[in-house]
Each structure stands twice: as C-alpha cells, then as structure tokens.
C-alpha cells in the first residue's frame, strides 16, 4: 500500500521534475538565449492554441470520454470562416478566395462558436442517446469534418483574413500576444469552474463512476453532452485563434493536434479512465510539450526528428498512464476483495 502510494505521489508530480530537467537540457544545448523573454513568449504562444484545445479535451476526458473530433472542428471552421469572409477570387495554383459574401467577422465569429458547440452537441447525442462508442463517433466526426473542409477549400489556401478577425490570434498588448493572455485567463477560469461549480462536481462523478453518479441523482447523459459541447466550443475558439494568427486558411490546420491534446492532458495527470485530474495539471502538460517543441526548433532539428520526439513523448506518456491506472486498480482491488460473497 505505502509503496503504491509513494509511487502514485511521485507519478502525480513527475511532470514538474521533467519540465525542469527539459529546461536545463535546452539551456545547456542552446545557451542563455533559451532563457530569454522571447523564448518564453514563443513557448506560451505555442501553448495557446494547444492549450485551448486541451481544456476542451480535458473536460471530455474527465467525463470519461475522448473527443477526437476537435481537430476536425478546427479544420472545418478555419476554412469555413475564411470562405465566408474573403472576397471571391478565381482559383489560381493553390490559392483561392471566398464565396464572395464577405461576411463581417462579427457575424462569422459567433457563427463559428455556435457551430463548434453544435457539433459537440451532435457528438454528445450520438454517444449518450444512441449509445455509440465515443472513440468511433468522434474519430468519424473528425474525418467527416475534415472531408468537408477539403470539399469547401478544394485543398487550396485562402489568404488575407480581415483585421477585425485577427486580433485574438495575432494582436499584441505591448509585447505580449493577446492569445497568450486569453489562454492563461481561460485556464484559470476553467480551473475555477471545474473545481467549484456544480458542473465540475458532476463531471468528476460521472467520469469516475457513471452508475453511482446516476444513483446519486445526476444525469450522466446530460453531463457528457455538455462536456462535448464545451469541447466543441473550445475547438471553435482555437480555430478563431489559429486563423487569426496565420491570416490564411490551410485545410490541414490542426492536423495531429488531437493526440497532442490527449498527451498534454495525460502528461498533466488526467486519467484516460475518467474522473481524475485537473485543468491546471493539463496546463503543465501543455507547457512541457511546448517547451520541447520550441527548444527543438531553436536547435534547428530536422522536422522529421521533431515529429519523432513528439511521437515518442506521446507514446511514453500514454504508456505511463496505463501503468499508473493499473497500480490504481490494484490499490482499489485490495479493498474490493473484501469478502463480499455472492451466491
């Protein structure tokens, strides 16, 4: 028991230790330049889009479900937003314009948020009402949305989003990007929300033990659906942020980010089995991935190896989480083996 507890304690806090080691490693390899304010801003900038998506993912994971559709939502909404806002232009090589409606950003942004939430709602309904597997549903949704993004964009990029749209992703207050401030605030708000609001309590209960939550008077179907709606909403925010930063829609935007969000959450101590972990924990995971990415980029490592390292981190994180939950199961099993005799 005590051995298990110690292991648990260390596993739960290992992230900060690793983060420090990683920073030391990069400082040695790159030098003092790595410890500059610019690097910090770069790390946080990298952490912003990933972070917003990770908040959504974490909430879904806490409810005991995966949301693999988020990157599909990002992909669709960035393309859709550019398409609705940009003037019509004949397609050249790989560049295209919008449909020509030139909608105002103040219409498009709410539309994105509503659409993202709506897609989350559909996920939730399919999973809770039709009782389909959350993994299959959201993966299918991801591929489906990406397919539609391709159909709209025909694979072309659409450059030149309007200024009013770009302030969230590209704007700065002094030297600090708006998106960084925005993301930090979001993390704090959601940490507070999940920890103290009634919804948070339901989320943990439903994720940890759906049957007991129901018998305690909660409505797990509703809670899970709401979790997916938050996931969809956060994906829409991420899409807005990302498109605003790049000022050009690329149909492959967001590709592969789902796994990074899952990995960030898991690295930060969120259990894949649901009901355990915190938003700020997930933030530490986001930070670690961002530091590694930024560091490797500054070392001018071949992109191939960056992908490899990232993949390795993700696999190791998932593997550790599986082992950790095994320990947890063993610990609880020690209790569960009480002489409950069924005959």
């Amino acid at each position, binding site marked *: 028991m005590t051995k298990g507890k110690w292991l648990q304690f260390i596993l739960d806090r290992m992230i900060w230790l690793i983060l420090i080691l990683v920073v030391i490693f990069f400082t040695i390899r790159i030098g003092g330049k790595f410890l500059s304010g610019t690097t910090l801003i770069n790390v946080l900038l990298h952490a912003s889009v990933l972070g917003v998506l990770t908040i959504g993912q974490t909430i879904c994971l806490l409810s005991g479900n995966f949301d693999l559709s988020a990157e599909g939502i990002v992909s669709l909404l960035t393309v859709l937003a550019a398409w609705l806002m940009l003037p019509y232009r004949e397609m050249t090589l790989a560049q295209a314009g919008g449909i020509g409606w030139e909608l105002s950003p103040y219409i498009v942004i709410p539309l994105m948020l509503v659409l993202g939430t709506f897609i989350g709602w559909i996920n939730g309904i399919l999973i809770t009402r039709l009782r389909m597997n959350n993994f299959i549903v959201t993966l299918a949704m991801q591929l489906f949305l*990406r*397919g539609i993004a391709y159909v709209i964009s025909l694979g072309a990029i659409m450059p030149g989003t309007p200024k009013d749209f770009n302030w969230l992703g590209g704007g700065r207050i002094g030297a600090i990007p708006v998106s960084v401030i925005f993301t930090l605030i979001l993390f704090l708000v959601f940490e507070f929300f999940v920890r103290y609001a009634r919804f948070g309590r339901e989320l943990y209960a439903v994720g940890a033990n759906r049957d007991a939550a129901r018998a305690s008077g909660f409505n797990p179907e509703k809670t899970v659906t709401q979790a997916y709606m938050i996931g969809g909403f956060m994906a829409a925010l991420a899409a807005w942020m990302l498109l605003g930063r790049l000022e050009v829609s690329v149909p492959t935007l967001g590709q*592969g980010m789902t796994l990074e969000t899952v990995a960030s959450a898991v690295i930060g101590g969120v259990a894949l089995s649901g009901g355990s972990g915190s938003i700020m924990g997930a933030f530490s995971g986001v930070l670690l991935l961002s530091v590694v990415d930024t560091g490797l980029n500054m070392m001018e490592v071949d992109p191939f190896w960056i*992908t490899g390292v990232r*993949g390795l981190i993700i*696999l190791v994180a998932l593997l550790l989480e599986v082992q950790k939950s095994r320990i947890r199961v063993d610990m609880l099993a020690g209790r569960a083996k009480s002489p409950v005799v069924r005959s």
Partner: protein
Amino acid sequence: MKKDKLYDIFLFIVDNLIWVFVVVALLVFSLISKNFFTPFNLVNILSRVAPLALLVIGQSFTLITANFDLSSESTMGFTAMVAALLLASQKNGGLGLEINPFLGILIMLLVGGAIGAFNGIFITRFGMNNFIMTVAMLMILRGATYAISPGKSVNFLPPEFDWLGGGALFRIPSGDGKFLAVPVSMFFVIVAFIVAHIVTKYTRFGRDMYAVGSNRQAAEAAGIDSKRIVTIVYIISGLCAALAGLLDAGRMDSATPRTGAGLIFPVQAAAVIGGISLFGGRGNLIGAFGGVLLWGILDTGLNIAKVSPFWIEVSRGALLLFAMFIDALKVRYLRRMALRKVLAASTIGLKDPLLQVE
C-alpha cells in the same frame, strides 16, 4: 433437436444483407445514368478501390479479434512515401537512390509489418488500449510522412513498381478501335480476398482469431494464446496496409504526403456493412468483399452522376453511421433473442436479465 426457425432466417438475412445492397446499388445507378453500366466502368470499380480493399482485409482481421487498427491508412501513406523516396530520382522528389524496385517493395512490406508488430506488442504486452494505441500511431505516422516527404508528391516511379497498381493484365479490343485494359489490381484484389477467406475460414489460426474475438477468456481457457494471435493479426494488418500503399502509389505513379489520408473511414464502413462486427467474432471475408464492392459502386456511381463532392462526403459519413448502427442493432438483437429464450423458459427467475444484457 428442434431448431429455432425464426432465428435461423434472421441470421441468414443479416449475414447476406450486403449482397442485397450491392444489387440494389447496381440497379439504381444503372437506371440513373446510362454511362454507368459500361464494361469500362465495371472493370474500373474494383481497381479504383483496390487500395481500400487491401485495407479492408487488414481491418477485417483485426476486427474479427475484437480489435481496431485505426493506423492502417497512415501505415499505407508512410510505406508508400518511404518506397517512393527510395525509388524516385532526385529531380522527381526522391532521395536519388533509385534502388531496385523489388527491393523497394520488400522494404515497404518490412516497414508495414514492423509497424503492425509495434502496435500488436504495445497492445498485447503493455496493456495499451487498442483504440488509443492505433490512433496515436495514425497521427504519429501521418506526421512522420509529412516530415520525411519533400512537402509535395514524389513522382515517376519505376514501371516494375507500378505494375501491380497501375498495370494492365491484358487488353480487350472494344470494337471502336480502342482497347479495354483489364487492370492487374482487379485480379490482385480478388486473389487477396480468396486467400484471406481461406485463412480465416480454413486454418486453425483463422479460427483462433474468431475464438479470441468471440470470447477471449473462453478462448484462452481452450489453450489459445490470444496475445500471439492478436499480435500476428496486427502484423497482417500492417502488411495489408503496405500492399495498399503499393497499389495506390502504382496507380497514381506517385506518393504524396496525403496518400491514404481519410481512408480509415470508408475502410470501417466497408468492413462493417459487409457484416464484420465491431464487437468481434462475427462476419466473414466474402461479406467484406461485398462491402468493398458496394463502396466502389457508390463511389463510381456518385461521380458519374455528377453529385457535388460535398454531398459525396456527407453520404459517406451517413453510410458509416448507418453501417455502425446496423451492426449495433444486429448484435443487440441477437443478444436479445438469446435473452428472450431465457424469459420464455421461465416466467420469473433470472437475476435482472435486462441489466446483464447492457
């Protein structure tokens, strides 16, 4: 022993439902478009979906053991890119090694098999969830494919390499002085399905797959090494994905960073609508072949009918949902049939029967 007639009839229908769909689809498209029912189209349906067909074979193997391999589309893209880089000249985007095409194919298969083995070992030995593991692999390999590619397609591959995917086995004069080329890939797909069918139906390994998928504990109690079976199945799936990459690169005479992207979606749909159950232990490769045919017919038919790509995409999504829905319904119904027998047997007596079904 008296047989339960209704049950048998139901089973026969659900097991062969796919062929009804195939025939209906053929009829509908023939009526909609005069251009559909031509020799050229019919011959091309199978070669168009040849890469998909190979992925479906691999997926069926894993699904029968109640596992998923969601990484296969990326395995396909990655192996195709690896081979293309090794084969193509530098000016066409390759590394300029221009190695022997057969060596290239061999390397492809080795890489595919190794990826499958990696998946299988992590799932069976380290207790990774098969979903998480293969989705991680799906994304990691796609990223790796982009990373190793020159950022665009790699073109002009050697003809020996292209033969299987793009070559013609023979040509039939089609009257007007032109020739109808009968593609190699069509025959390859048919042969592959026959082999897969024999493996699943007539080898001990194949039957062990079904046993593991139907009830792993019972299979292990009967002395079947489920970990070994599942690992091999993932290796087979990796090999099939590499073959799919070979067919696709051969047909296109190029590999792109997006080769195979998004295919996992139709792969699942084709396998499931062909009767391979997501819950394991059910379905056969002949049905899966029917699923591939149906997908090919829809694909070709919708294209010829000039349906907008948007609606094609939507209809594909709808088809997958429909297939999954039918599958869930089927399994639920079969379980309920078993349950009804229990209830019919005793007015009162079973401990919470409905609770145990869910």
